[in-house]
């Protein structure tokens, strides 16, 4: 019983830490609807800035508090600058474009932090009070954890007061509901949004500084924080502060107790909780159904047939792709193969995201299932490559069908996060089931048969991927595609004319999963190996970036995005140590210059 009380308190302290990171994210999302991928970077910057301030100050509690507040103010300033220079320009751009822009920022901040503070983990020397413990029922419990436990609800109360008891808070809530109305009443909406963004960023920075007594400032903390924060925000209900606290409490305590019964559970526990909560309560614990905030950008992706010049360009590209292997070297050929596979991967996500209206943060799941479904039969049953390549899309499609049945009932970011949860569960299975999947060491030696050299594999990949992408395109211009778009644009009207919208969405989901599975199967054979990293969040983000970079509105978008992103990535990786910074800057530049994606250039 004593141990379980300590575990409970430990869980509550962890919950407060989680809440402090997530609070800023949910505030920002609730008001601006920006999916701020850079929130983890702001958290990391808060920790580094906090370290720079606090390691120069006396170690007394009052100086610690001062340092944390200063770190918060500094990150708030950075956040405000970010909003004014970048996000403000793209509020009216297509949905999720802010995610792409902030992803670019994440990459830039990673390299900037490395160069400003160096590679070594930075730890803050702790004053005596920070190291002290309180004896609870004979067990020692850190005093600082008790402070954290109290801090969570205090911050919650302060945010609540600000939003309900001040004029600024009232205006912000009004802007959340109806942006146009608020600005018609003469309120400077831009300043309002900047201040909200600064507040959320400041909260992230403070959370970073508050993490210092129990952790180091290190270069991996941004990505760890961002996933945790997103999960908490979504479980709690998007934009709900109190929901975020409840969600943090749920995760913190489950984690602290679960670690005793099943130590490995930490790998995936938060995502299992998220999946369970979203299946039962699609809007999260305390979320309301999101109504589109009036005044939001026109986010509808319309699909027009390709113009003659575009068709010509596509043919020319294809001709180059066919001729290329006879001219270029083996590595360039492997890059082209990679591009071909990326095209199908991106095009499959686009079917869901564009015409289907369902963005996914976990698209790598299907790619990974396809890869494993192709590799395992080859390794275990010595199945031949053509059959393995047939199994890949079928397996991925079947799992997508089962998962899709749960997923398509949801919408927007919630739907995207549920796909992320499933991807993480699939990842955990691949990672943990070492007897079958080889665990983190993956499956090696999945080489194609001897008749299929690199060139043959390239043509196989090219024909299957280009063919797959064309087939997807064909389907979108078929009645099925129009019906799918109808159910995206107006669910009620679509149903009124007798369309089964859920079924249409489910078909799109399954189709996308299946196509991504084929891409994964091809990847397994061209690389000769499969690793759990193919299912990682990073790989899912790659798919999103490709679609958004190219432009979600056109069928050419994901194809262009896949070519540009893969090419840019490979070229930069070889060209510079600072490839993350340059890649990030390039993404930000593209977002600012052509918010509708590179394919949008052609339309101008």
């Amino acid at each position, binding site marked *: 019983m004593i*141990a379980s009380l300590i*575990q409970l308190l*430990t*869980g509550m*302290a962890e919950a407060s830490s989680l809440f402090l990171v997530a609070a800023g994210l949910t505030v920002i999302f609730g008001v601006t609807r920006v999916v701020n991928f850079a929130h983890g970077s702001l958290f990391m910057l808060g920790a580094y800035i906090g370290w720079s301030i606090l390691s120069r100050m006396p170690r007394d509690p009052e100086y610690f508090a001062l340092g944390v507040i200063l770190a918060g103010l500094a990150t708030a300033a950075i956040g405000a600058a970010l909003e004014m220079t970048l996000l403000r320009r793209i509020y009216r751009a297509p949905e999720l474009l802010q995610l792409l822009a902030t992803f670019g920022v994440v990459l830039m901040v*990673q390299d900037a932090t*490395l160069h400003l503070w160096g*590679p*070594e*983990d930075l*730890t803050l*020397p702790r004053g005596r009070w920070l190291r*002290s413990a309180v004896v609870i029922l004979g*067990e*020692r419990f*850190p005093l*600082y954890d008790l402070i954290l436990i109290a801090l969570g609800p205090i911050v919650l109360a302060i945010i609540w007061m600000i939003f309900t008891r001040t004029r600024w808070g009232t205006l912000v809530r009004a802007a959340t509901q109806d942006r146009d109305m608020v600005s018609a009443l003469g309120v400077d909406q831009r300043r309002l949004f900047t201040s909200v963004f600064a507040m959320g960023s400041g909260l992230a920075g403070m959370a970073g500084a508050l993490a210092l007594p*129990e*952790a180091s400032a*290190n270069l*991996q*903390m941004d990505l*760890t924080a961002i996933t945790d924060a997103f999960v908490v925000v979504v479980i709690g209900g998007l934009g709900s502060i109190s929901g975020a606290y409840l969600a943090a409490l749920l995760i913190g305590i489950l*984690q*602290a107790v679960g*670690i*005793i019964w099943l*130590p*490995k559970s*930490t790998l995936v526990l938060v995502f299992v909780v998220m999946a369970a909560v979203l299946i039962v309560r699609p809007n999260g614990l305390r979320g309301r159904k999101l109504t589109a905030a009036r005044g939001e950008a026109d986010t509808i992706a319309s699909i027009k047939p390709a113009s003659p*010049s575009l068709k010509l*360009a596509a043919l020319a*590209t294809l001709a*180059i792709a066919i001729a290329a292997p006879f*001219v270029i*070297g083996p*590595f360039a050929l*492997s*890059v*082209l193969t990679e591009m071909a596979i990326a095209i199908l991967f991106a095009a499959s996500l686009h079917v869901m995201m564009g015409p289907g209206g369902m963005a996914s943060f976990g698209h790598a799941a299907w790619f990974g299932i396809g890869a494993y479904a192709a590799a395992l039969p080859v390794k275990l049953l010595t199945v031949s490559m053509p059959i393995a390549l047939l199994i890949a899309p079928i397996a991925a499609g079947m799992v997508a069908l089962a998962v899709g049945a749960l997923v398509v009932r949801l919408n927007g970011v919630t739907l995207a996060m549920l796909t992320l949860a499933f991807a993480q569960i699939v990842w955990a299975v691949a990672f*943990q089931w070492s007897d079958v999947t080889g665990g*983190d*060491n*993956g499956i*090696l*030696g999945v080489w194609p048969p001897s008749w299929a050299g690199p060139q043959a594999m390239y043509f196989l990949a090219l024909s299957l991927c280009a063919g797959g992408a064309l087939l997807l395109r064909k389907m979108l211009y078929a009645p099925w595609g129009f019906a799918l778009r109808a159910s995206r644009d107006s669910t009620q009207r679509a149903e009124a004319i007798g369309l089964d919208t859920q079924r249409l969405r489910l078909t799109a989901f399954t189709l996308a999963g299946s196509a991504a599975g084929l891409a994964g199967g091809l990847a397994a054979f061209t690389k*000769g*190996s499969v*690793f759990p*990293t193919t299912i990682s969040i990073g790989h899912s983000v790659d798919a999103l970036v490709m679609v958004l970079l190219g432009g979600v509105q056109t069928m*050419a978008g994901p194809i262009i995005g896949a070519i540009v992103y893969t*090419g*840019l990535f490979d*070229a930069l*990786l*070889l060209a510079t140590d600072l490839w*993350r910074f340059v890649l990030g800057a390039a993404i930000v530049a593209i977002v600012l210059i052509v918010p509708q994606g*590179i*394919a949008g250039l*052609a339309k101008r």
Partner: protein
Amino acid sequence: MQLTRRTLLAASATLAAPAIVRAQGSTPIRIGEVNSYTAAPAFTLPYRNGLMLAVEQVNAAGGVLGRKIELLIRDDAGKPADAVRLAGELVSDQKVDVLAGGFLSNVGLALSDFALQNKKLFVAGEPLTDALVWEKGHRYGYRLRPSTYMQAAMLVDDAAKLPAKRWATVAPNYEYGTSTVKWFKQLLLAKRPDVTFIADQLPTLGKIDAGATVAALEQAKPEAILNVTFGPDLTNFVRQGNTRGLFENRSVVSVLTGEPEYLDPLGEETPEGWYVTGYPVNAVKDAANLAFIAAYKARFNELPKMGSIVGASLIASIAAGITKSGSTDSEAMADGFAGASFATPFGQATWRAQDHQSTLGTYVGRTALKNGHGEMVDWRYVDGAAALPSDAMVKTLRPA
């Protein structure tokens, strides 16, 4: 759409262009190195410094076989699939003679498999998994660092002398962690059948929930703890452990914790009396170590870390292997490296013929706190050869 075509062309032109202008006369020996520079900078950046320093030294001394060494470095960002792709670029476009590198075990194994497939020599520096030289060892694969088996074997003598009978373990949940725990248990039980292992914590790499992990270990009431975590996980674990008194009146055996990259961040919170493997950079006094430290400080204006040692030794081991092989032909090197002896800052080491593991050892000692910094005390150098199993056992472990 024009842009696509242009980008595609530009991209393929960049990639296809032979980036080398070869010198007239004797061409340099090219070493292609792939590592997780952006994913694990705390280890890999000092490591890269070590590589560069050693290459400069070898070239200043006239190179190898009368040829200079040229180093080509690639960043795999911690992803095994990218590592394999970059290895492909190094082999097919850059025509490197030797592949080297790796930090995480899975990346090392992926590169090793690539080397086998392409019949190219691969010399792994840091990856610690035993599979690299045993279970999945092959003719073209060599590995420098003491493996998880060797790390466990080096610590187990001290562990067996402890009175503790009830042990708990905490290790990151991936190959390196689980493999170290497996060997440590096996080796300790062989020496001390009275020992029982009562709790195993397996936090996710880089995401330890330190408070809950420490509380769970505390609840199991072990007499001794084996720690395998490193980096940010270790810092969090130690801080929570210190505050909650987990390490008081308990023995702790800890892998890699004495390496400066992991010990330095612990600062004044360094727990005292842990049995660790590592590198007492402030205390070594022998000529080889001091010479390296002086050269490193002169070049980079900081003290070397364990990564620096691995980087420098890796180049030395490759140079010696090529010299002994008398050629950069892969087949000649695959045979010729075996038995080659090379100088490292830690002393002389050899490439073993039976499993292609080097005999580079590491330091074993105890942690102590001096002037607010963690140090290793009572240390001794354990030669790698002394920590390896019998040849008969290696034979059963290495099918190839």
